[in-house]
């Protein structure tokens, strides 16, 4: 049985990390949910590449941050934030595809 990430995580967000990168935080309310997602690989480097259709070298950081029960990864932007054509200067609306992510049991 699988569950949506939306139902397991407390916070799912994205935001600029400097002008050249966007960072994603998925924060869990309880250790069980955090460990389940870590274990499942639903947010592994490979999964992130698949979800966003990007090459592995676009991921600059990918960590499991135990004190905050969080999975955090960071992507290199194609062009710096606010360059003409950038649709999200703050990088704040890039997490949408994560909400419906299926997390296997």
């Amino acid at each position: 049985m699988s569950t949506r990430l939306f139902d397991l995580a407390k916070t799912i967000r994205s935001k600029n990390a400097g002008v050249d990168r966007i960072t994603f935080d998925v924060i869990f309310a309880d250790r069980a949910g955090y460990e389940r997602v870590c274990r499942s690989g639903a947010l592994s480097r490979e999964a992130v590449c698949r979800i966003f259709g990007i090459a592995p070298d676009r991921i600059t950081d990918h960590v499991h941050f135990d004190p905050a029960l969080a999975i955090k990864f960071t992507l290199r932007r194609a062009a710096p934030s606010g360059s003409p054509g950038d649709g999200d200067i703050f990088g704040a609306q890039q997490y949408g595809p994560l909400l419906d992510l299926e997390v296997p049991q």
Partner: protein
Amino acid sequence: MPVAIQHQRSANRTLRIVCPNGHLGFAPIKTGSFEIGLGCEPDLLCADSGSCDIGPGPLGADISGSPLAWQTHDLEQMLLGARRLGVPMIIGSAGDTGTNSRVDLYVRIIQDLARKHALPQFRVGWFHSEVPKSLLTQRLADGETIEGLDDRPPLDAATLDATDRIVAVAGVHPYMALLEDGAEVIIGGRSSDCAIFAAPAIRAGFPEALAYYYGKVLECASFCAEPYAGKESVLGEITAEDVKVTALLPAQRCTIASVAGHAMYERANPFYEHFLGGRLDMSRCVYEQYDERTCRITGPTFEPAGELRVKLEGAGKIGERFVGLVGVRDPYTIANVDGVIGWARTQVRERFGETGYELHYTVYGRDGVMGEREPLRHRPGHELCIMVQGIAPTRETAEEVCMTGLRQMFYARLPEVKGTAGGVAFALDEVLPASPAYRWTLNHTMRVEDPIALFPTGLVEAGI
């Protein structure tokens, strides 16, 4: 549980700071929790006023991203509180960008407010952060490498040439110098967020590791508390052993989860914070719930830099810009919207050639927000909005590029379209002048001998 720090200091020797806003001026301070903070015996009131998040335009054009009325509102709240309590007030990265003109603007606002409220005389310290291009040209000529951050290549002459304005990001040093000089209000140029709070703590003799962590946790005000609420005040307390942070809005708490979670906010890596002078390592931080609304943090470490490197931020103008919008409802046209855009691009190319302008299409309803990262771009909505941006050296050309790129979508020749009276819908049959287009040209670091050399300081009087 111990007595809440909101009511009582947790040790004999402490330094308490109230931070009312994580980006002063960007949205007004909520005054209720700030008033509560003023009742908590703060030793200083500090806030950061800058951010790169607003894009390269304000730095390039040397303007604020925030309205003067909101900047004045927030400075007035803080100034009246600080003078009433007789404690210093520190603002960093004045006016969003921390350019010289923004520092001078904030100093003027402080002087005007002091006059308006007939405040007894006090000293205002300031420092500038702008770096002249000529200095970097000289460094490059001297063979110095100005390293790129975040995978950028080292700075070259062409990139420097395409840059309009540069700020260096200060550490604690100019703040400490101004406190030493007796400044009671400090208006800082561009600086590391954490330096604004760390400077008074280091000067008061608290350990550097805790002082920098203190700055890191306080700089976004209520973003380190839960539930989510912006522009509310938080109270910080540093001792020789720990840092404590407490939420001042009655509905908020600083919890282990909220404070540890904040350590990750807006940063590629949750463990390290880099600034002029060294690096804060948060990987061994221990978080404890101290009282109901307060989180206690121990264990950060500080690694002094072997070589002093200052971060440089620079923005360069690309051109003047016009913007237009169209809608699309025909399902066939939606399915072939790239063909519509392609037709319009071809018309622009025929008129203006291949280079010397930029033309951008953002297709809302398909991938306007996420662009290439959008996994659902093959499933567009039943209607689309397309934003067209035309950018060129002059306003006249930018307007015509944009108008051509917009209006030619109306005439796009799709082979099987049934609607032959116009391919797109106009809510406004016009293009609108937008702010000029800029880009971040510098995100680099440069070696310096003296951490204060790029940041000239000064003192002026305010009040009567």
